[in-house]
């Protein structure tokens, strides 16, 4: 699964996710990627989000939308809300990670797997990472 989230100069947020699913899945299996709120979500009032990992658990948690609700309704800072939903993912036995941005440009790329292919571009600079300890 691949994904991107962005905050533009007008202050708008957007998210996009695309995937081939899981190796050896049943034909017709649909994971979190096309399920709005589970694999992809964007709302200028809260966050832009894209997830990757064990899609079935992301869907059961509606993880992206839950993250947005914690930010908007519970007033949680994005890093704190991200840690909470990642704990909830693990508590259901799910593995994976996500990228998320809020409307002020706060950025998170958490994962509970050994690694995640990820990158950030801001202020004319770019950085990529693969392993969890980077």
């Amino acid at each position, binding site marked *: 699964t691949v*994904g991107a989230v*962005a905050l533009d100069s007008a202050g708008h947020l957007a998210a996009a996710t*695309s995937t081939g*699913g899981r190796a050896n899945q049943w034909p017709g299996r649909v994971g979190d990627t096309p399920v709005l709120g589970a694999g992809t979500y964007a*709302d200028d009032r809260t966050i832009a989000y894209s997830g990757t990992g064990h899609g079935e658990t992301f869907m059961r948690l509606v993880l992206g939308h839950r993250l947005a609700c914690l930010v908007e309704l519970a007033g949680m800072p994005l890093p704190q809300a991200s840690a909470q939903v990642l704990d909830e993912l693990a508590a259901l036995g799910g593995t994976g990670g996500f990228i998320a941005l809020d409307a002020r440009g706060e950025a998170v*790329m958490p994962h509970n797997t050994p690694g*995640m292919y990820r*990158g950030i571009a801001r202020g004319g600079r*770019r950085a990529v990472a693969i392993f*969890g300890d980077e």
Partner: protein
Amino acid sequence: MPPTLLIHGGAGAIERGKSTPEHEAALRSALDEALAAGQAVLDAGGPALDAVIASVRVMEESPLFNAGRGAALTCEGTIEHDASVMDGAERRAGAVSATKRIRSPILAARAVMERSPHVHLTADGAEAFARSIGLEIVPEWWFFTPERQAALERVQAAERGESGASERDRHG
């Protein structure tokens, strides 16, 4: 806050020493290329929606990621794509699922959002819609890579109890 772009190319058992330096370098280069594509849009004052599509397009075309070309295989050795996009300004959204021959699933998802009255189209209907608006359709073999075929065989052998499949094999 300056315009900002984040990308991911998948999460899983990605550990040091598990892949060759060449493969790791190719991954970093592909991630940087995806970032650069989206960053160019933002730096030119373009919308976040165009930026995320530009980055995902680079990764769909790369055989290194489980999306578009180089996607994981189903238990029947076929490939099915899912994709979605959401625009935070008006909470517009588009998604496709279980497509087999649309070259770019993310462009199809965007077209569903912008050129159909729906939010999600699936399977043959999504393919017919994509064809009707002129999105590129390719033969299914175009998405296949030897690495994913081998990964499927390892996963299926493991299911038969014949040998171990890695986490990487399972998740693509």
